[in-house]
């Protein structure tokens, strides 16, 4: 439990866009993929994923189509649109900038002031 990280507000979009950019996924698949690529360090409350997915669709960054999942169930699959790909690039740049800035702040020592 200690090794699990809370997801920062605003980063859920980034994680979803990244997960979907690796290939079309249904909602549960998005959760599995985020869990898998973060080695279980990032947990999202499962239901909270859907409002985020709906919003990303409405913004035109994801496209939803009905298909059949690996266990032969009808499921709604999400994939990245061209606008979504652009958005993902922007979000990654923003994230990198934020991380760099915070890293600089945290490394500051008294004599540097």
């Amino acid at each position, binding site marked *: 439990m200690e090794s699990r990280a809370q997801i920062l507000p605003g980063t859920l979009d980034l994680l979803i866009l990244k997960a979907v950019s690796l290939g079309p996924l*249904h*909602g*549960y698949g998005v959760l599995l993929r985020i869990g898998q690529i973060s080695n279980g360090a990032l947990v999202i*409350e*499962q*239901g*909270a994923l*859907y*409002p*985020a997915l*709906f*919003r990303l669709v*409405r913004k035109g960054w994801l496209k939803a189509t*009905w298909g059949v*999942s690996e*266990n032969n*169930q*009808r*499921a*709604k699959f999400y994939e990245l649109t061209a606008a979504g790909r652009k958005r993902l690039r922007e979000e990654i740049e923003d994230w990198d900038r934020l991380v760099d800035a915070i890293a600089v702040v945290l490394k500051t020592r008294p004599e540097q002031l």
Partner: protein
Amino acid sequence: MTVFSSLRTFLDFVFRRSQVEAEMEEEFRSHLRSRADDLEHRGLSRGEAEREARIEFGGYQRYKEECRERLGTRVLQELAADVRYGLRQLHRNSGVNIVAILILALGIGATTAMFCVVDTVLLRPLPYRQPGRLVSFFSVSAGSLGICLHQAITLTGEPKRTYSKAWQPLIRAPILSRVTVLHRNSWM
């Protein structure tokens, strides 16, 4: 872009509401089933797995509500519910409401009728060429306090000699023509 997407949201709400709702329900259920399947593979009984999947999912109805909000249909849905509620209330106190509606109708009707009269009598211009230049002349007779109607003419139609030079400055003053319109019933 935003206008287009709002319009689409509205059309979806009107024509595809039940389909959108059904798809949302199906998507959530499919999630719960997949999760329960996974948990079952890890050794839970089917019942336990389903229960656990629901717990992990969190507030089912709350997330549906949030999804509706993201779709932009929540406002419309609440509006529709309010209208239905209003109609139910109207139906419940029908006696009082019929009286209220009749009084409103009477009030609106009376006001409209009144306005029609005032509009034709006072506000509309007279049905003549250049009605703004129509004037009526009044003169005060020497030694008398009474005002009598002297003459009425149209400036555009009648020859100029029908009014004296003394009137000229007054005729150019806009206030006179306005007085004229208000008084037209007295000389027509």
